[in-house]
Every structure is written in structure tokens, then in C-alpha cells.
């Protein structure tokens, strides 16, 4: 029974990792860009929500709604002004610019908010739980997982049911031909990063309400997100969710054996998948 409980908690934790990973997966899918500042942008989003909560006295969920357009504009501008310049055949510029961005965001947050850890309070919701049959699960973890599923469903609908999604896929396959058909890749890429930042805001809400945050925790979130994307297979949103769940379950199982092994167990699961299925469990893209 205790193992069933551990696995359920792991699956729910995996929802959080899938939320971290969905934005990364989206940006990679559209423009083959790996954003090393992704984790720091999540932390930035969490601090933005924290500021809105304390300045306007809003409920964190409403604050996240307020933060979304701000983060969308930030992502749009970042892509249009900075990151579009780095795209090309050479892999160095995007990697080094986003790595620099990661360091800049971390240290700007350190300067603004100090190294103290903080938390976004959601009233009594952190401690609330519901019972699913014999197992009690926290309301927040359950909400996180349901949000992750909703985000994946929404992203799939966006990609495969809308004109914007068609433009995303067309540009991803062949930017030159897509350009001939009237798609402006620069604006399209900016829109994709903007949408990724909305997903990042949702991830930031749950990161900040479920655990303590401080400016230096971004890179670890990037690594979890990256592992989830690789385990799932590049280009598949449902695969990303599965990847997040695998990391989550591995971590809670590791922690059940020895609390010090939690993070390590997640990394080991990733390395095992890399060794046995180098293209991930549900690969779609060919690169």
C-alpha cells in the first residue's frame, strides 16, 4: 500500500515537472531553440506572482492571471529582440546567449530579492487533501497535475487545430517555404516564446506555492524539464507529460528508500532511458 501511495505522489509530482517541460518542448518544437534560461524564467515568473500578490493583495491564482500577459510580452520581446538574432546553423550563439541570460536573471533576482527563500501562500489550500479511495492526496499536487494535463491538451489543440498551430508546424518543417506562404518567422517565433511564457507562468504558480523559492533554483528546474523532454521524445507533448511522470515517480521512490537519493534517482532514471532508448519513449521529430 505504501508503494501505491509513493507512486501516486510521484505521478502528481510529475505533473509539476511536465509543466516545467511543456514550455521548453514548445519552443524546441517550433524553432529548435534550447533555452538554457528556461528554469530561471520560471523562477522569475514565481517572483512576479509573489510581487503581485503582496502589492495588490490578490489571490495567487488571480495574480497568475495578471502575470500571464506580462510574461507573454516579456517572452515576445525577448525572442524578437534578442533570441531571433541567434538562430541559425551554428549552435553556439543560442546556447551561449541563453546561458548568459540565465546568469543575468539569477543575479538580477538576487540583487532585487536577496538570497532568502520565500513562498507564495494560497490560504489553507497547501494543507488541504482529498481522499482517492484508500489514498489521501493533497489538493495542490492534484491541481498541479490536472493543470499539466490541461496545458498539454491545450497545446495539442493549438498545434493541430488552429491556423497558428499550422503556421508553427509549417515553419518548424521548412521556414523558407512557410515564409513564401506569408508567414513571418520572426513574429511567429516571438509568439511561440510568448505562449511558452504563459505556460511558464502556470508552472511558476505551482512552483512558488508548493515549495520555497529563491533566485538560485532555476538551473535545477531546467534540468528536470530537459530530462522530461528527452525521456518523452522530442516533439511530443504527451511524451513530455510521460517524461515528467517518470522523473516524478523515480524521485519519490528514491526518496522512500533514502531521502538523500530523491534527486539522484530522477537523474539515474533519465540516464537509463538515454542508454536504452536514446530517442526517448515516444519520439516524433527526427532530430
Amino acid at each position, binding site marked *: 500500500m505504501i508503494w501505491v501511495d509513493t507512486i501516486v505522489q510521484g505521478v502528481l509530482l510529475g505533473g509539476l515537472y511536465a509543466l516545467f517541460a511543456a514550455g521548453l518542448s514548445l519552443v524546441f518544437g517550433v524553432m529548435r531553440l534550447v533555452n538554457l534560461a528556461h528554469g530561471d524564467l520560471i523562477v522569475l515568473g514565481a517572483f512576479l506572482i509573489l510581487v503581485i500578490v503582496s502589492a495588490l493583495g490578490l489571490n495567487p491564482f488571480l495574480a497568475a492571471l495578471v502575470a500571464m500577459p506580462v510574461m507573454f510580452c516579456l517572452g515576445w520581446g525577448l525572442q524578437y529582440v534578442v533570441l531571433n538574432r541567434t538562430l541559425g546553423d551554428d549552435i553556439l550563439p*543560442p*546556447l551561449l546567449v541563453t546561458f*548568459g541570460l540565465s546568469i543575468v536573471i539569477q543575479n538580477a533576482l538576487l540583487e532585487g530579492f536577496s538570497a532568502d527563500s520565500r513562498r507564495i501562500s494560497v490560504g489553507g489550500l497547501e494543507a488541504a487533501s482529498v481522499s482517492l479511495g484508500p489514498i489521501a492526496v493533497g489538493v495542490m499536487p492534484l491541481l498541479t497535475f490536472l493543470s499539466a494535463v490541461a496545458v498539454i491538451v491545450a497545446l495539442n489543440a493549438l498545434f493541430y487545430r488552429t491556423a497558428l498551430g499550422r503556421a508553427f508546424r509549417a515553419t518548424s518543417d521548412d521556414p523558407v517555404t512557410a515564409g513564401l506562404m506569408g508567414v513571418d518567422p520572426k513574429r511567429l517565433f516571438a509568439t511561440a516564446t510568448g505562449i511558452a511564457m504563459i505556460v511558464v507562468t502556470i508552472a511558476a504558480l505551482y512552483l512558488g506555492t508548493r515549495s520555497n523559492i529563491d533566485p538560485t533554483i532555476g538551473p535545477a528546474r531546467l534540468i528536470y524539464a530537459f530530462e522530461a523532454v528527452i525521456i518523452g521524445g522530442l516533439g511530443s507533448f504527451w511524451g513530455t507529460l510521460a517524461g515528467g511522470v517518470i522523473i516524478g515517480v523515480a524521485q519519490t521512490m528514491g526518496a522512500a528508500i533514502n531521502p538523500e537519493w530523491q534527486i539522484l534517482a530522477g537523474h539515474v532514471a533519465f540516464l537509463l532511458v538515454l542508454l536504452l532508448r536514446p530517442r526517448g519513449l515516444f519520439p516524433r521529430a527526427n532530430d
Partner: protein
Amino acid sequence: MSAPSSSGWTVETRTRAATGFAFFAVVLIALAFAAPLFVSRSLLQDLFLILTMLVLAQNWNLLAGYAGLVSVGQQAFVGFGAYAMFACVSLGGLDPMLAILIAGMAAALLSVATGFFVFRLQGAYFAIGTWVVAEVVRLVLAQWRALGGGTGTSLPNAATRDMAAVQWIAEAFSVRASQAADILTYWLALLLCCATIGFIYWLLRTRQGLGLSAVRDNQEAARSVGVDARRIKWAVYVCVAFVTGMAGALIYVQKARISPDAAFSVIDWTAYVIFIVVIGGIGTLEGPIIGVIVFFVLQKSLADFGSWYLLVLGLIGIAVMLFAPRGLWGLFSDRTGIQFFPVRRILKGGPSIDHQGTRGGPHG
């Protein structure tokens, strides 16, 4: 390259600036070796920092700038080398100088083991993959109770003082053992630095180095003319791990205190190194030398501003990558054509142009 006499063509790498620089370099190295005679102890420690950062920077530059393997996980080898040295000295009672060599070999072995994982990933994914590997090594070593677990441990005081070389230096210079240890680590850093630059310079001038540049510029074209890209990348990855591990061990002989978070710090051993190389000029031997000077000047002038220092360094790094991707040295070299380490092969002579004429691409 063959039969220069019949066609009049010759391939040369020598330039006048480089010959001048070679003289200058010999004088500089001689001066640097004599430095403990006339500089203060704190300056010697600063020079140690500069030299070790330069070793790390040249190695990362070889990996990313020449072999196209952009790693953000080189702290794995710094930390692993440092821990291997600590294990040899604290647990095995070996001489730290021998331990540094063993640490390099341990790091090279680690790179062979981790290479099987990270070489399955391409480009940007390779970068984050190396980072994951570094995290795994850090978390595993944090479990090693005999070396202090997560909180770390110190080298026994006697370990560095009892080194034969330290006692010899202490007598020869009539200084205390702690100062003699500083002099020794400085000399070792200088030796490692010269050996690293010499090795990379030699490598780039060999057939393998030419193959490496070819793979960097166009992997498919290079493979089509018979360059084994995969083997070259593997060899570079392992060599770089060996030297990086030795540098890590040397740094921690001087620090004498280790913890997993410090030894595997992505900021200290990878972020700084990347900024040094990018600002100085990636893919050149001169770039990291310029970069480490800029890094050090910025560090000294912004030392009181805490995180502003990294913020500024990050912004400069981004600006350089966007607007001058070949770095400060690239800007200088493009305008003047000067190279201090001539690895460019220049075609000279030939029947169609006079003997002053030179031909050759900027990367050839």
C-alpha cells in the same frame, strides 16, 4: 603540400608577428617562473587564479570552439579531479603532486564512462546532458562520508607542508612552509598552463588538428574526405577531461578545503570559463588569454558589488556573442591580420602570383 619545388607553392604557418611574439613569450615565461623572487604573496595568489582559470578556459575553448562540443558540465571534471586528489592525499597518504596526476587520470576515466551517455545527445542537448552528468557526480560524491559527505572536509595541514618539493623551496628561498606551498602551486599552475597551450598549439598544427577544424567548419564535408569526426571528438573530450581534472586537483591543493557545492559549482568552473572564452574570442588560442585578463580586471574593479559583477559579466557575454561573435581578439585580428599563435595555413608563392603574394582563408 607536396612537391613545392615543381609548382612553387608552399604551405606556411609562420608570420612575422608570430615570430616576434615567440621571443616575447619566451621572455614572459622566464619572467613568470622567476616571479616568486620579486612579487608579493597576494599577487602570486592572484596569478595562480589567473593561470588556473586560463587552463580551464583553454580546455573549454578546445572543446567548444574547435571540437564543437559545447559543454556546460566541465565542473564534473574539476570536482572529480579535486575529490580524487583529496582521496589520494587524505585517505591514501600520497604526495599531493602525485595525487594531481592521478586525479587527471581519474577524470579521464570518468569522461570515458560519461561519454557513452552524453555522446548520444547532439548540440544543445549535449550541453544540458553534460550538466546532468555533473549533477549526478556531485550528488554521488556528496554521499562519500569519509570525505565529509555534503558538508565537505579539509586537507590535513601536514599534507602540503611535508611535500618534498615544498621543503626544498622553503629552504632555498628561506620562507615559511605555507608560503613555499603557494610558490609550488604557482609554479605547477604555470607549468600546466604552458603545457596546455603548447599541447593545443601543437595539436592544431598536426593532421588531427586540421581534421578538427574541418569537422568544426563542415562536419559532412570533413567526413566525406575521410576525417573520423566521432573519434576526434572522443579524443578531445577525454584529453580535455584529463587536463581539467588536473587543474581541479591543483586548485584544491591550494584551497585545501573542499565541499561538493563548491567543487561542482557551475558558476565558478563553467560560467566564468565560458564568459572568459566568449569575451576573449572563441575558437582562437589568443582569445582566452585576452578574456582572462578582462575577467580579472572586472573582478577586481567590481569586487565590492556582489552579484552585480556576474550580472555585468553576463550582459557583456551576451553583447559580445550577439554583436562580435569572434570576441575581442577576433575584432583585433580581423582588422590587423595579426596572429600570435599561427595555426592558419597560408599558401605562398606559386606560378601565377609573385612571391610576396599570400593566399589562404581566415580559418584554413
